[in-house]
């Protein structure tokens, strides 16, 4: 069985390559648009994206490789999803989501914002999965990594990139942290977020947030937003401060080993989903906790 792995981040590429092995792939080809990935796959495909071209359009260069593969695993990024969708269309199928788990049964993803989890696979013999970071096991990745160049194929009507601003990642990555201090609507003013940052700093953790703090008010960047349409975190400790505990948020957090909640509303659903909860004003509790640690 042959697998094609497409990713934008080297660490996720490695995970997907491990996932491909677990699905039983004996030949794994890998494309990564974000740095070299060595010793993780049998082949490493180099797709040089021409200046001004969209990474998304790399799909057209990969059609032949995808056609030769039995399974295509694509990292769940915005560009990855375009590549996955185009390849799936070329292969006569649709991409299935594997945002929770990937097995030979199919991809497990959230459904209705986490109300359910659904396992889907292609009805045909070619599988395309959109795989989230953290789903597959990088330790299973192996291979000589024979390099192979793949020629760029421009689409008939290509869009052009005219500007690109790297997002300054000022904060630690919550998907990789042992402790995540997550801020929600309970924060009434932007400057109060410092209290969450101070606590995270004390614990050597990262800060994250629920949707209201990134959409609309823009207090925190989108990459820190935990939830069904954001990131999924799996820390040892998740501290939900001023977060009510809506399901759309909790699906991104409920694989944390321990959940601690701080909320002034004792009826907030978060208190049913936490290991330890404290009812009160986060503006007083967070600094007191930081001081007590």
């Amino acid at each position, binding site marked *: 069985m042959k697998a094609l792995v497409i990713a934008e981040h080297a660490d996720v590429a490695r995970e997907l390559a491990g996932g491909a092995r677990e699905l039983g792939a004996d030949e794994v080809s890998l494309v990564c648009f974000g740095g070299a990935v060595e010793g993780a796959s049998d082949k490493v495909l180099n797709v040089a994206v021409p200046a001004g071209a969209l990474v998304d359009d790399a799909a057209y260069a990969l059609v032949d490789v995808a056609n030769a593969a039995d399974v295509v695993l694509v990292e769940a990024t915005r560009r990855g999803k375009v590549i996955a969708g*185009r390849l799936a269309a070329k292969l006569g199928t649709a991409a299935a989501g594997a945002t929770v788990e990937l097995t030979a049964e199919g991809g497990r993803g959230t459904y209705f914002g986490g109300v*359910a989890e659904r396992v889907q*696979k292609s009805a045909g013999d070619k599988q395309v999965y959109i795989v989230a970071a953290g789903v597959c096991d990088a330790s299973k990745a192996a291979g000589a990594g024979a390099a192979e160049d793949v020629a760029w194929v421009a689409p008939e009507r290509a869009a052009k990139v*005219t500007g*690109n601003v790297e*997002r300054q990642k000022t904060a630690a990555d919550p998907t990789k942290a042992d402790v995540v201090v997550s801020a929600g609507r309970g924060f009434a003013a932007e400057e109060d977020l410092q209290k969450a940052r101070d606590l995270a700093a004390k614990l050597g953790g990262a800060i994250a947030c629920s949707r209201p703090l990134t959409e609309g008010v823009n207090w925190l960047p989108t990459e820190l937003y935990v939830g069904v349409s954001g990131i999924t975190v799996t820390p040892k400790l998740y501290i939900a401060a001023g977060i009510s505990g809506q399901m759309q948020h909790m699906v991104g957090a409920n694989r944390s080993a321990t959940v601690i909640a701080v909320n002034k509303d004792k009826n907030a659903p978060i208190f049913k989903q936490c290991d330890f909860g404290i009812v009160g004003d986060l503006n007083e509790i967070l600094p007191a*906790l930081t001081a007590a*640690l």
Partner: protein
Amino acid sequence: MRIAVAFKAVPDAQDVQVAGDRTLDFSKAKLTISEYDKNALELGAQLADEAVAITVGGKDIDNSKLKKDVMARGMGHLYMAADDALADLDAAATAAALVDVLAKAGDVDAVICGDGSADNYLQQVDVQLAEKLGWPVVTAACKVEVNGSTAVVTRALEDCTEVVEVELPAVISVTPDVAEPRIPGMKDILAAGKKPMDVAGADNAPAAALTTVECLAPEQVARKQEIVDAADDGAIEKLAAAVKAAL
């Protein structure tokens, strides 16, 4: 400029019940416009001289209130395929059915899609639709400006913000902050039912590309749920102890 906005009618997630065997029960859930499609409708209404709404789904989406709700959001015409052969489609099948509907809607300069549907949230219909139409697709658009036959789109990607120029016609899918959905006003609501709406059955029954193996509510993670009040004696000490125990 004429724009088609593709939207999806979904059961209102708040009314979806989980049965004892963890299956989902939609019987009490009313159909509603998928939340993020409201942002797409708003952008379409703002950009277009004439904005039309397109959708496909089961027979039940031919629902008078749902249709008026779409029309009250600045749409000039609705083209809908409502047929049980079009219920619960995957992205490939949805895109195929949308191509048929779009053929009836006439020429458009762009199709705008929302960020992702409330049920699947896989962000695939936009891409599949573009492939079938042979059009470029630009996703994750948080800002869209149209200059003549070109759209300048700002994409909010994971690691960067990318500005893209795309010749129209194209499929553009938007993030929720591209435009705040209007609150349909009383005049919009009263006018909605009088606007033209074309509802038809399926021209073709698209084949399913995906098989659903299982769809169940997740098992609840058992949490200890030890709750204290901040005003209680020793509450902060207990909190600090809980934090230390977790590390």
